[in-house]
């Protein structure tokens, strides 16, 4: 189990910097404008996740075989990454809302 989590995190690292930048920008905008921009930020986050999916599938597709040889499927990698990343985004928004 720990090994699977470590491998998923390795896969996530290729995407982490872009994710941190986008989530931080969303946090700053939410802090400035509040709940009124939440819907726009939600769709911005979804769109950037879709773009990231496209770029990783295009430019890092060969690396999938590293994970396949360790018995991790593409579906498991992507579901884990997307759910984690989206939950972090929601967590940040809720935290900022409470702080406000």
């Amino acid at each position, binding site marked *: 189990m720990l090994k699977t989590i470590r491998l998923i995190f390795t896969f996530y690292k290729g995407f982490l910097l872009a994710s941190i930048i986008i989530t931080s920008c969303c946090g700053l905008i939410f802090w400035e404008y509040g709940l009124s921009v939440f819907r726009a930020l939600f769709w911005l986050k979804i769109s950037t996740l879709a773009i990231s999916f496209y770029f990783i599938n295009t430019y890092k597709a*060969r*690396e999938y075989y590293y994970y396949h040889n360790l018995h991790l499927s593409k579906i498991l990698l992507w579901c884990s990454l997307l759910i984690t990343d989206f939950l972090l985004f929601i967590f940040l928004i809720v935290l900022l809302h409470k702080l406000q």
Partner: protein
Amino acid sequence: MHTLEASGIRLQFGGRVILSDIYLAAATGRITGLLGRNGEGKSCLMKIIYGTLHCEKSIQIDKQSYDRTYSRPGLMQYLPQFNFIPASLSLKRIFKDFELDYDLFQSRFPEFAAKHTAVAGSLSGGELRLVELYITVKRSSKFALLDEPFTHLNPVQTEKVKTFLTEEKANKGMLITDHLYRHVTGICDSLYILSAGKTHPAKSIADIQRLGYARL
């Protein structure tokens, strides 16, 4: 002893039939060679057996059918024709992931003695290929599919790899394809030629020419 049988495979792209009449068998203790011209579908066939390319097929290991052999631990490892290790990973981490002993690796390939902490992206093409080949073959599994294992290797490395594969076949069945066909025929126990979407068992070296793969 474990057996692998691939049959009933039909693969087509946009109406063009790539593979249509395939029968291929491999077993523990044997290296099975697969030769064919570019575009005949050798890599596709390996991906179909591995389970990352979907089509009509029957893949049986020990008489049991599988769809995605890669998802079952201990069943199948695959060396694609391209580099597949993420460039940022160190050799230490790679060997940890694949549950392999680095000391055994460096005793066989001493040129890696001081590279335990080197990342994959810093290795030369030949060194990286050697690491990929080693982890694919050494990882515990019933079968290994090797697509162009000799690419980027120098002659000394190639000879070492041939010895390594010949030793390792005692532990698993292997299916190998490479355009350096003399290396393949030099170590394989049985050989298939892929031509016009069909597999043809080659009984002798002369069959390679008869089936149009190479001029001897």
